[in-house]
């Protein structure tokens, strides 16, 4: 019967006796370890997900988790749970694995949608965002006035060109 990923438990049946395989382990060299000294090699990862887990942080708001692990980690950040349209996109993204564009591209799209949601939220809360201040214009004016002037000039030029293009005489 064909295995379906969503029905597969997270387990690794690596154990057992492999001595019937001719030559099993005869060239094993514990010193052949390019991870030294970053990794203090032991066999803990060969035991699978069997360590004694820390106490689990109560889940009081929605926490998305990768479909490459069986559960939410023992602790996690509780900031900014998914909500609105960006939240829907994030929930959709987490149906896909971490090596899939189906995971990351919807997340990037959600981030951009979230920016618009943030501006709407600000205005709803009576705060009109000062985008120039948020972009640190004071520092740029102080330390790089010529660069700022150049950016403003280029921006004005683009807006003027766009305006002229949109209002061109259609009969010409």
């Amino acid at each position, binding site marked *: 019967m064909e295995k379906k990923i969503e029905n597969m438990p997270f387990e690794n049946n690596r154990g057992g006796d492999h001595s019937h395989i001719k030559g099993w382990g005869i060239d094993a060299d514990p010193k052949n370890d*390019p991870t030294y*000294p*970053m*990794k*203090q*090699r*032991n066999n*803990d*990862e060969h*035991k699978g*997900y069997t*360590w*004694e*887990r*820390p*106490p689990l*942080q*109560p889940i009081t708001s929605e*926490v*998305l*988790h*990768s479909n*490459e*692990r069986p*559960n*939410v*980690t*023992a*602790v*996690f*950040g*509780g*900031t*900014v749970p998914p909500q609105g349209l*960006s939240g829907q996109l*994030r929930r959709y*993204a*987490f149906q896909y694995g*971490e090596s899939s564009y189906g995971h*990351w591209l919807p*997340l*990037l799209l*959600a*981030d951009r949608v*979230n*920016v618009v*949601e*943030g*501006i709407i939220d600000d205005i709803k809360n009576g705060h009109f*965002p*000062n985008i120039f*201040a*948020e*972009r*640190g*214009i*004071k*520092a*740029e004016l102080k*330390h790089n006035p010529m660069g700022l002037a150049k950016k403003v000039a280029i921006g004005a030029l683009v807006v003027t060109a766009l305006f002229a293009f949109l209002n061109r005489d259609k009969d010409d």
Partner: protein
Amino acid sequence: MLAMNYRGPQRVRIDHKPLPQIQHPEDAIVRVTRSCICGSDLHLYNGNVPDTRVGETFGHEFVGVVEEVGADVHKIKVGDNVIVPFNIACGRCAFCKQGLYGNCHEANPQATAAGGIFGYSHTTGGYAGGQAEYVRVPYANVGPTVIPEGMDLDDAVMLTDVVPTGYQAAEMGGIQKGDTVVVFGAGPVGIMAARCAWLFGAGRVIVFDKEEYRLEFVRNYAQCEAYNFMSVGDPVVFVKRTTDSLGADVCIDAVGAEAAGSTMQTITGRKLLLQAGSATALHWAINSVKKGGIVSIVGVYGPTDNLVPIGNVVNKGITIRANQASVKRLLPRLIEHVQNGILDPKALITHRIPLEEVSDAYRIFADKLDNCIKPVLIPPSARM
């Protein structure tokens, strides 16, 4: 409390947010006394890291005073001044037990490839960061380390990330006595990697960057050669010419996703986001290292794909070693180095900026204004 608030690419501001609460018996609440902006925060700032949500607070390099501890915290106590490693580690999973504290499996539900990191998007766990007055610190028995008596807070805050990451970059290079080491990037981590390369016995250290003020700094601070890749022509050919045509023994990518130097990489990686940042430094590192050499990567890239010359990795027999720094593993040695005057990390701090001016601080650092190398944010309570 005051906290940095991300509003979208290149838009951040200071806002009032609720005080953090103990959410787990091994949590601590820390009142921040110093918090840096890291080069990798710029990937978030520029909107390049997926699942960076509006309203998040960044900041993974901070020190502070323990204000409150959970019921099961016994390694630190209220009132302790602590260094908080940027990676969140349980100390119990298979990876933590092997010293891979940057790869903990019990700290980030959102991605298995990345560990938990403070203030670094939901792709690394969705934790609030330290660019704030207070921060929740999980697994407080594992990561936080009491700042030794007499250590300057500016030195201590550099031990949360910059020093261990620079040191581990050199360590992963497997540097042998006499080796020629090339470091791409003279940001704080690149500068520290160049300095630390000598500790492993390098025979020659060469740094590339495009900012003259940073090149001058690293020449003096790390006592190394430093060249502007904008003026040397092809930096790979430059390395070959200066190494008997063989290439460097070890190359270190200390830049990551924001690299300049290749129009194609910049457009596809940084402007169009068709790859996970610009991989120019890694490209140069692979092509500059000798056959059988080692490339060490500490530059941060996003989670999708990058264009790198993988065929050359195979054909040259290159060993690539990379990881987030395992801060907890390295701290005892690095604290010794700072206390013995071997490393002087606070010398990298060029800007001390009030937390309230976080928008300007990001602009200064992102655009390398005012000869900025490392900015530190100081909350109001730490300025009294």
